[in-house]
């Protein structure tokens, strides 16, 4: 699954409704959720998606999984300064992922997306033939991640 958006009529994540209508078990069928970037129109409902697709690995930029960025999200979650719903989704995703890690099954579902990294290797059926398939990240580069982390530190100086 790539990104998330909300179905206007139901107010719920569109992809979840679609898969449910097909009779697909969200808990086990979804293997990978790729979060391309953190713009509001790409992450609406993502917290619920991550929560319900409980066996899926979540691939998002390595920069957004650093402590510096987590500090920033905590600073900005104050409603007085949080201007976008995307931030609340991000915080929810982090909390769901942390909860997965502390659950009885102890699954760390995080996948650091970096350029050229293989996010998923699997097999798919094409015309009755089983063929290997893989999903690769095209970005971000190491330099971009390092630059982003430096930028986070500048925005949120340490106490």
């Amino acid at each position: 699954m790539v990104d998330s958006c909300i179905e206007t009529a139901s107010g719920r994540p569109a992809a979840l409704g679609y898969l449910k209508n097909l009779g697909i078990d969200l808990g086990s069928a979804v293997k990978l959720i790729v979060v391309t970037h953190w713009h509001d129109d790409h992450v609406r409902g993502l917290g619920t998606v991550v929560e319900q697709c409980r066996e899926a690995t979540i691939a998002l930029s390595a920069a957004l999984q650093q402590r510096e960025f987590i500090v920033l999200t905590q600073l900005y979650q104050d409603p007085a300064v949080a201007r976008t719903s995307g931030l609340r989704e991000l915080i929810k995703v982090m909390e769901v992922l942390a909860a997965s890690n502390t659950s009885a099954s102890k699954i760390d579902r995080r996948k650091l997306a970096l350029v050229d990294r293989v996010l998923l290797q699997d097999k798919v059926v094409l015309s009755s033939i089983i063929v290997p398939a893989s999903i690769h990240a095209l970005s971000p580069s190491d330099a971009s991640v390092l630059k982003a982390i430096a930028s986070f530190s500048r925005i949120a100086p340490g106490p």
Partner: protein
Amino acid sequence: MTAMQDTAQQIFTCFDPSAGSIFVADPVEQIPSGALRPEDHLAPLNPAPDLNFATLPLSFNGGSDPVQLIDFRPVTSGKRWEPLREIFRVLQKWEGFVVEVQSETFLARLVPIKGEGPDQEAEIYIREVQEADIELIKPGAVFYWTIGYHDKPSGRVRSSIIKFRRQPIWTNRDLEAATARADYLMRLFNEE
């Protein structure tokens, strides 16, 4: 319609706004595609009467000279300049970080956001910054410097705009609380 009248119809007079004069233009079909015709900028205030060229008097000189069409419509009445939309076209944009502040200038590190080029350092006159932002010029402050064209109905102006970011004010207590919550989350991820 005679062939001569047909030829005459392909000639028209119009107003050249840039030259402020009347000129006789080539037939519309001969204007390169994509080129703006003067009349493209004009919008009628009152619809001009629909002239039937076939009924206009044509002057002949013995029947052998080229046809001379006289368009009796006043060339400036009934039309005015349609104000064009103002557009700012960004050529280059940097995110800047103040490194050092002097009495009249400040030293900044510039990272390109739009446009090509490496990171660089620049010394910028404080007078380039709008008055409301001057108090924000301190080491570590973040600003955005945009260079581009400001296209207005009156013409194109090359612009340089510096805007300082105004971020929320956090206290040490806010920072400590946020760090503590972040560390708690990180610990959850790192639990064995």
